């Protein structure tokens, strides 16, 4: 087995720009560029930023048995998962869910997209392509199912922030047409010109891409998949198109603080090898209408229904930017308490938010106070042994300091990810 780290097609670009590089998920990735984490984080809230996410793994599943295989292994009910009415997953739509083991523990989280009938694409975390491919192969009972890990053949980048369409307008052919009707968690086009699609998305030079209205920042934007050889070209085209609008490359550190403020979990840190229940993300489970059980059978369902020794995961938000180091940090109900009720899973600073008269505003809040200059708030997730209610005060503590935080359902307000695309074009 090799321990050498992998590089994305943009590695040389990152190092030439003076990015601070570090190992993440087996890849040497940019943590931040010279502009710094704070500038990068804020640019995604007020303008837009671009992230190299080529380290994420892409697996395709094709064949007549693909649907039933995914129904068995993936948490979402693909017959009932789109919108309030729980419509079936249709071509051009994506859903977020988890792969569980028999014990109801998370193997990885994923975005699953239906490319066409009997053709699905799953995007999982860095280094997880092999494991998820193997899991699917082990569970497959159909003869014609083909599972391919495309990770090493693709480049991927995320353009995130309210100006995303304005920037991509310059790069994509017939952008007006492409951006007309483009719901959250849908996608258009395909990176492989050989895959027939209703509405191909092409760069101005004809290079095909898969353009997906998804992301990991909580803000309006897109994920773009392209064949590996076109990665650097596309990255530079997009950066060039946005250069006059405060558009900058962003590293994994800003990605982490943005996702924490958006209440999104990091796989293997906020969800992982423990029972997937009593957390902010159980909407990915296929509950039936009265929440008494599940609408389909899937791996891990029995363990989830039993919920033995289940712990509770909550989002929290603090009162200033101070963080707690998550290694061996504990959670207490109050300052004098000696008995810890749990652990911190994530603690980051969302630099775009601040408190004003007991309410949290973001730099992007339309109703923010005049001259609002946020100092940032610590936020993240805790896993505790007792149920808590929203607004419950807690003390989180490492060996350096203790800080007061409260349990919350939402951290950064007025996020743009779900805004109708019409509002983002003008």
């Amino acid at each position: 087995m090799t321990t050498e780290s992998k590089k994305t097609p943009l590695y040389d670009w990152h190092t030439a720009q003076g990015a601070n590089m570090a190992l993440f998920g087996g890849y040497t990735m940019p943590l931040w560029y010279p502009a710094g984490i704070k500038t990068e984080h804020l640019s995604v809230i007020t303008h837009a930023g671009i992230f190299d996410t080529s380290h994420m793994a892409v697996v395709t599943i094709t064949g007549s048995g693909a649907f039933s295989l995914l129904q068995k292994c993936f948490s979402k009910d693909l017959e009932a998962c789109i919108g309030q009415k729980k419509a079936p997953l249709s071509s051009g739509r994506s859903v977020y869910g988890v792969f569980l083991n028999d014990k109801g523990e998370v193997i990885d989280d994923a975005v699953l997209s239906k490319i066409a009938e009997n053709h699905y694409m799953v995007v999982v975390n860095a280094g997880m392509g092999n494991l998820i491919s193997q899991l699917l192969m082990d569970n497959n009972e159909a003869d014609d199912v083909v599972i391919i890990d495309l990770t090493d053949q693709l480049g991927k980048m995320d353009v995130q922030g309210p100006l995303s369409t304005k920037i991509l307008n310059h790069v994509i052919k017939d952008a007006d047409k492409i951006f007309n009707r483009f719901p959250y968690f849908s996608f258009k086009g395909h990176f492989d010109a050989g895959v027939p699609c209703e509405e191909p998305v092409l760069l101005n030079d004809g290079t095909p891409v898969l353009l997906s209205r998804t992301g990991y920042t909580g803000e309006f934007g897109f994920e773009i998949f392209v064949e590996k050889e076109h990665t650097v070209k596309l990255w530079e085209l997009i950066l060039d198109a946005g250069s006059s609008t405060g558009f900058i490359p962003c590293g994994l550190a800003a990605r982490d603080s943005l996702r924490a403020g958006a209440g999104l979990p990091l796989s293997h840190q906020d969800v992982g090898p423990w029972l997937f229940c009593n957390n902010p993300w159980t909407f990915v489970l296929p509950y039936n209408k009265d929440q008494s059980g599940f609408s389909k059978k899937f791996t891990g369902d029995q363990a989830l229904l039993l919920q033995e020794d289940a712990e509770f995961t909550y989002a929290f938000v603090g009162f200033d930017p101070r963080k707690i180091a998550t290694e061996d940090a504990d959670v207490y109900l109050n300052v004098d308490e000696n008995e810890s009720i749990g652990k911190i899973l994530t603690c980051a600073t969302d630099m775009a938010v601040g408190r004003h008269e007991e309410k949290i505003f973001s730099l992007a809040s339309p109703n923010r106070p005049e001259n609002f200059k946020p100092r940032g708030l610590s936020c993240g997730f805790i896993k505790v042994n007792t149920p808590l209610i929203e607004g419950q005060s807690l003390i989180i503590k490492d060996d350096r300091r203790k800080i007061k935080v409260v349990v919350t359902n939402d951290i950064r307000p007025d996020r743009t990810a779900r805004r109708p695309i019409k509002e983002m074009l003008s």
Partner: protein
Amino acid sequence: MKEINELELPEDVRYSKDHEWAKSDGETIRIGVDDYAQDQLGDIVFVEMPEVGDKFGKDDVFGSIESVKAVADLFMPVGGEVTAINTDLEDAPELVNQSPYGDGWMIEIKVDNSSDLEDLMTKEAYLAVLQGSE
């Protein structure tokens, strides 16, 4: 991050191995973190300060400095009693990045032993330490 030869290291302050600076102004000594520290930490978002009247020995932790990347302890380059703190940092911690030896100063102390200051490093000695740790 800056190369060592790009660091701003004024001649009129003394440096500690923990990257604090101290500058004597007769009775009092002003303390902050140097250009190397602020550059390593990146965007500073919070400075945790002691209170006026607190007493610390040399090398004691007198507060902490938090950037988006990390939290670092602040160590006393010399022992003494805190006589003033820079309250501007409460609302504008980025002053430490912008002006580490000027508006980004942290505390003033009445020094216990004025000869302590002489034990701190000159610019030349500090540069040699930084170069040695590369």
